């Protein structure tokens, strides 16, 4: 008898405060597993956001700092410049990264800061109770868009990966999801690759995870994962948007 899957040592034993079926738990685990696999969990510093993941520092068994809302890339830039040998990660939601923190993420990417950003895109503000986020889909209901998001009134959703891929600074940008076990495996590969590219010092790395928010979407966790596959992924297509290591290999 052999144990083939158990909780990674790069996570603490603290019980996660997230709602049942919240994708944050899956992505926390993937990040921790990737760091443990490369032995970087003793050498990592994570900048955690404001939002549902604000307490992520309690769950990661490596250094973490809580940042001002949206400013994790700025904080992480400073950490990386002072400690260039450390693996520096920012972990941010869509309200944090794509709304109040848009300036910070765009300029950190444009400067080519050698950090890795994990971006959780679930199309809604989770912690504050389901308000419309910059990533809310057209027609999707939120407490501040009762009849569903109307692009004529509320504007259009941001596709952050595509936007950042137009810049020169980023070395690696991929969008993944976690709605099936196969997608979880792919998401882990993407995070692993981003961390490897950061270790080589090639530039800014960015992994967007299309995720679910069962509570604020008003769906069960299983139905929310179906919504991710049927509605979110067609709008936010998965794939690699930039990879300078692949371009070099040509």
């Amino acid at each position, binding site marked *: *008898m*052999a144990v*083939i*899957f*158990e909780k*990674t040592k790069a996570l603490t034993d603290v019980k996660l405060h997230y*709602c049942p*079926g919240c994708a944050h738990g899956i992505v926390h685990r993937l990040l921790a597993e990737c760091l443990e696999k490369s032995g970087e969990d003793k050498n990592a510093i994570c900048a955690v956001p404001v939002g549902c993941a604000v307490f992520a520092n309690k769950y990661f068994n490596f250094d973490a700092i809580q940042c001002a809302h949206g400013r994790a890339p700025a904080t992480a830039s400073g950490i990386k410049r002072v400690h260039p040998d450390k693996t520096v990660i920012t972990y941010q939601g869509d309200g944090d990264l794509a709304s109040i923190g848009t300036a910070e993420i765009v300029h950190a990417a444009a400067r080519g800061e050698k950090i890795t950003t994990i971006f959780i895109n679930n199309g809604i503000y989770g912690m504050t109770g389901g308000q419309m986020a910059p990533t809310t889909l057209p027609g999707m209901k939120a407490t501040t868009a009762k009849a569903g998001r109307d692009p004529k009134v509320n504007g259009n959703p941001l596709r952050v990966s595509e936007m950042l891929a137009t810049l020169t600074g980023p070395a690696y940008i991929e969008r993944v999801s976690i709605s099936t076990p196969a997608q979880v495996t792919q998401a882990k590969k993407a995070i692993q690759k981003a961390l490897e590219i950061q270790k080589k010092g090639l530039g800014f790395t960015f992994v967007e995870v299309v995720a679910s928010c069962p509570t604020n979407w008003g769906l069960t966790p299983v139905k929310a994962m179906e919504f991710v596959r049927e509605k979110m992924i067609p709008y936010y297509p998965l794939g690699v948007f930039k990879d300078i290591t692949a371009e070099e290999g040509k």
Partner: protein
Amino acid sequence: MAKGKVTINEVICKGCALCVSVCPKNVLALSTTKINPAGYNPAEMVSDDCIACTSCAKMCPDCAITVEKLD
């Protein structure tokens, strides 16, 4: 004969049923008799057909699942 064994930490399980939904052999189900300290019905093994694919553990948001491969 079971090829695998799934152990669920019933205290931290939140009964989200993502593991139940992805199991290819329908080995898991939410308990109808147990309730944990947080008030959730935890998942449990209901048959011996586990093939140790670890799909359930990959989807578990709370790291509540340990998978063992039986020889």
